[in-house]
């Protein structure tokens, strides 16, 4: 596998959790779903549960007319109605001393991840990244089955008849976007934006991984003298000392009629 990031944004299916009879272990080992079999739908990832339901025309688009009124609100349906499975497969074959992480850049609001029969819990919080080292749970044949059970916010709240800014404000108990209960400029979002709402990716590295570099520039002599300070976290995933050479390169885009020969 080439070193770098591989985004998983195609070939996702989704299904309402109450309509799936298998466990996450079964879905990712003996009973993987097939896209054209109900209750499975083609899913929008990244996106929300409602985005997937709208895409499959199972609910009207909430942004037209009063269509939003005809979509069942989570306060009436209960959280399980918007608790959804998301499923996909991916290829990944590592060479010796390579490692791979599965990354979720944002999930709303918490989730359980199943990969080839192994389970990991993604803790609560709409604005946090999750990264799981899956090096040792990849399938030897390279074909991997991934299922994610996504739960809505803990406090979805109930929209009072008069609406209002933030509905009954219950959503404020969670660390999540608050507009979803409706505001003076916005109707309530029925699923409270539950879903895998940002990028899912694999990051393939050798024994040492670069994490969250921090670039800071400082200026002196009226901006004539500038320094670029760089701090990185380096993680050695192997079981032996890693002798590394760390290189930073800073270049500018070629402009105008300057060409690189």
């Amino acid at each position, binding site marked *: 596998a080439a070193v770098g990031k591989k985004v998983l944004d195609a070939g996702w299916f989704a299904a309402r959790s109450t309509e799936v009879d298998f466990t996450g272990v079964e879905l990712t080992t003996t009973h993987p779903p097939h896209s054209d079999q109900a209750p499975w739908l083609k899913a929008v990832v990244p996106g929300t549960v409602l985005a997937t339901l709208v895409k499959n025309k199972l609910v009207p688009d909430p942004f037209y007319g009063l269509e939003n009124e005809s979509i069942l609100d989570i306060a009436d349906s209960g959280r399980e109605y918007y608790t959804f499975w998301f499923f996909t497969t991916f290829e990944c074959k590592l060479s010796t001393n390579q490692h791979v992480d599965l990354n979720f850049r944002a999930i709303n609001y918490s989730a359980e991840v199943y990969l080839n029969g192994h389970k990991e819990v993604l803790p609560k919080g709409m604005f946090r990244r999750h990264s799981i080292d899956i090096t040792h749970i990849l399938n030897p044949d390279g074909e991997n089955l991934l299922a994610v059970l996504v739960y809505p916010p803990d406090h979805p709240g109930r929209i009072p008849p008069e609406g209002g800014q933030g509905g009954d404000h219950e959503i*404020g108990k969670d660390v999540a976007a608050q507009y979803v209960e409706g505001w003076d400029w916005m109707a309530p979002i029925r699923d409270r934006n539950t879903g895998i709402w*940002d990028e899912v990716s694999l990051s393939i590295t050798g024994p040492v991984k670069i994490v*969250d570099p921090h670039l800071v*520039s400082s200026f002196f002599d*009226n901006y004539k003298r500038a320094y670029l300070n760089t701090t990185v976290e*380096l993680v050695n995933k*192997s079981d032996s000392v890693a002798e590394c*050479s760390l*290189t930073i390169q*800073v270049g500018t885009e070629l402009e105008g009629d300057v060409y690189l020969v």
Partner: protein
Amino acid sequence: VHLQTQQLSIPAGSSVQYTLPELFFYKPNLWWPNGMGKQSLYDVEITVNVENHGESDSWSQHFGFRKIESYIDSNTGGRLFKVNGKPIFIRGGNWILSDGLLRLSKKRYETDIKFHADMNFNMMRCWGGGLAERPDFYHYCDIYGLLVWQEFWITGDCDGRGDPVSNPNGPLDHDLFLLCARDTVKLLRNHPSLALWVGGNEQVPPEDINTALKKDLQLHPYFETSMDCEHSLKDIC
């Protein structure tokens, strides 16, 4: 091109925080907000090679040299901004989010943000009831020169000033709030367009959260002072 390589050993199964010796730039092309100059961006690439293995990982990011300052003006009580030492009159727009079903795409972000730049805005205010915006949002704000005022997830209505008053002490789990805030700062902090972190909308976060955020977001003193005097311009030239 500026290039620098350092050798280091990392013990098995561990992680290290490493600060490279700083890179010196003489008169770098500065990044300016929309309407004040060019949004000069550099390509920063960091690579780690491991002995007997080869390239192990790499990371790249657009980076803009700029200094953004802001303070409350004692006369007006308003917040004044300076970029690279020059005062700037803020023409800002409220930003909630691209789409209520979070169908967020690069194309949509570019269109929305270029639209605001074409309207001669120079700041986007990301409202506390919406999202911590995504890297793609900031990428296009870097390109089109829109400074970003990014609020954390506190609003007056939901956190202690609504009617009826609700959640006077904000979210139930303050540690979770700070974990999300710290991770969000790490996700977004290298973008030149990021101008200001703000506790919330029409409300100060609960005391413990606000104090922790202020402490976490201070610039490390290491970056405050000029290098030792031998690095004077004369010597370098």
